[in-house]
């Protein structure tokens, strides 16, 4: 199989052509540095992404609190992770860095708060 990957490691944006099969990568061209090789390899074998989203929060000035995965997770897991994020509900106060979900969907990544939201007195 062949795949063209635009490298996003730096602003140069190299187009890397990869030839691969179920056993792995056979050949690669178009890259201009090692970081490009690493990126393309990961994109073929196990592409990962950071997920940023928000969770429902009670007693804060906003109804949602922003969160992120503590490390990139497998691309295939994005939808599952989102489902989990949509279900949880937290209570203010929340501090940036608080773990909201531990080891989300068995990815090894935690969902952590990226904002500090104080408890607001409800009227």
């Amino acid at each position, binding site marked *: 199989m062949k795949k063209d990957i635009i490298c996003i490691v730096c602003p140069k944006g190299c187009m890397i052509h990869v030839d691969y099969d179920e056993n792995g990568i056979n050949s690669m061209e178009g890259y201009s540095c090692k970081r490009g090789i690493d990126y393309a390899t990961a994109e073929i074998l196990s592409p990962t992404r950071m997920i940023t989203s*928000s969770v*429902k929060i009670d007693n804060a000035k906003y*109804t*949602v609190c922003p969160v992120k995965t503590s490390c990139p997770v497998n691309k295939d897991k994005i939808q599952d992770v989102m489902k989990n994020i*949509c279900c949880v*509900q937290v209570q203010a106060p929340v501090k940036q860095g608080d773990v909201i979900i531990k080891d989300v969907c068995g990815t090894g990544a935690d969902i952590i708060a990226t904002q500090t939201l104080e408890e607001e007195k409800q009227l």
Partner: protein
Amino acid sequence: MNYDICIIGAGVVGSLIARQLSKYKVKIAVIERNVDVSMDATGANSGIVHSGYDAKIGTKKARFNVEGCNMMPALCEDLSVKCKMIGSFVLAFDKDDEKVLQQLYDNGIKNGVTGMAIVDRDFILQKEPYVNPLVTKALYAKNAGIVSPYKLNIAAMDNAIMNGVMFLRETKVTGIEKKDGLFHIAVDVTGDICSMSKIDPIKEEDRTDITAKIIINCAGAHADEISHMAGDDSFKIIPRRGEYILFDKTEGSRINTVLFQTPTEKGKGILVTPTVDGNLMIGPDATLAQDKDDKCTNSDNLDYVYKTATQSYTGLNMKKSITVFAGIRATPSTSDFIIEESSKCKNFINVAGIESPGLTASPAIAVYVEGIVRSLMEMKEKAKDEYTMTVKHDKPFSEMTNEEKEKACSSDELCRKIICRCETVSEKEIVAAIYSPCGARTVDGVKKRTRAGMGRCQGGFCSPHVMRILSEHTGIPVNRIAKANANSCMLGRYSRG
């Protein structure tokens, strides 16, 4: 609910008539299909107080234009609405144009217009340095000006409601039947904004089994359909669209007068005018609308408006345009205003085909219609302390001096929260707009009353805040807050339930 008088349509004409009649001991309802006043022709109007030289002598247009123009400043004073009699020019660029100026002048004299003069190039350019220097002469009308059409409309309805008029919003007339001399009016409820709002005075019984002794048809572009329901097909309304481009306030400071082009067989030209709030506006063109409610703008038409405006005014900077909009004029098949009791249906008064100069004429029309109603029904005036013909508004925060701002802020906490950056609108003004007699229920309603969202960022910054305030005070959930009517929800669902 039994009413003495039902007015159909809450544009500037319907609202001023409601106000005019509200001093009598009669039960009045204004039935409006939209959620607010001023949502059709009045809302997209040039806002010009015409002096009255161009309407054909002897027509209702001519009569009510001149009368209305003379009444406008005092009426606006009473209603705390800004009206600036800044004068107008009709610009001529060649001998043919100049001939037309003379005709307009002569016609104006016949119509009873005062304060006109044919002026030369120097006079024009001294007053308006950005007029195309190829200008040769102009008809100057001192007795012309600008007014905010929707502010006038809102204030008129506020006043009417203060005097006990029932304003039935989101209520559309679907049929009129006359039984034993009494009109039975069938209506549909067109939206749920009022029923969601906890501060709305409309009760269900107010709009069930509606009867009226007199109907006044002020339904704008749809007046022929309403008239048809009453059995009168004597006229048709032809919807003609006009498109406008509005510019930033930075541009409005360079123009002082209303600038018309000389009318030709092709049309009336495009006007360039400051607005009472200090913006610059150009428009309108005139195209036949397929649909009476099709208020879409079109790129060809906007191009035409711009290009034609540049022929008379050199100061346009398209980078400073902040919005475009279109309105539908209710052009009557009879070519003159129709203001009379229907010959086919007793006690049914048509106030139809009120196209330009309808806004200028509206104060005079209201008084004239009052006369028609009095000839049909005996009405007793309320005691002096039972009604008012004036509306008082606090000065907008943006127009206060520093000392006034200081004072306002020290006495009122809500003044200290500025919601709209571009137009410097405080939370106090937005809350006041919601609780005013004809209160705002929508984002556009707040915008028209307070100018929040009217500025250069067009609500990019303030709309979330305006929606929050609307929601807090009306009880309508934030995600159900509408821009205009109920079918125009600003947002979708909550993402996390």
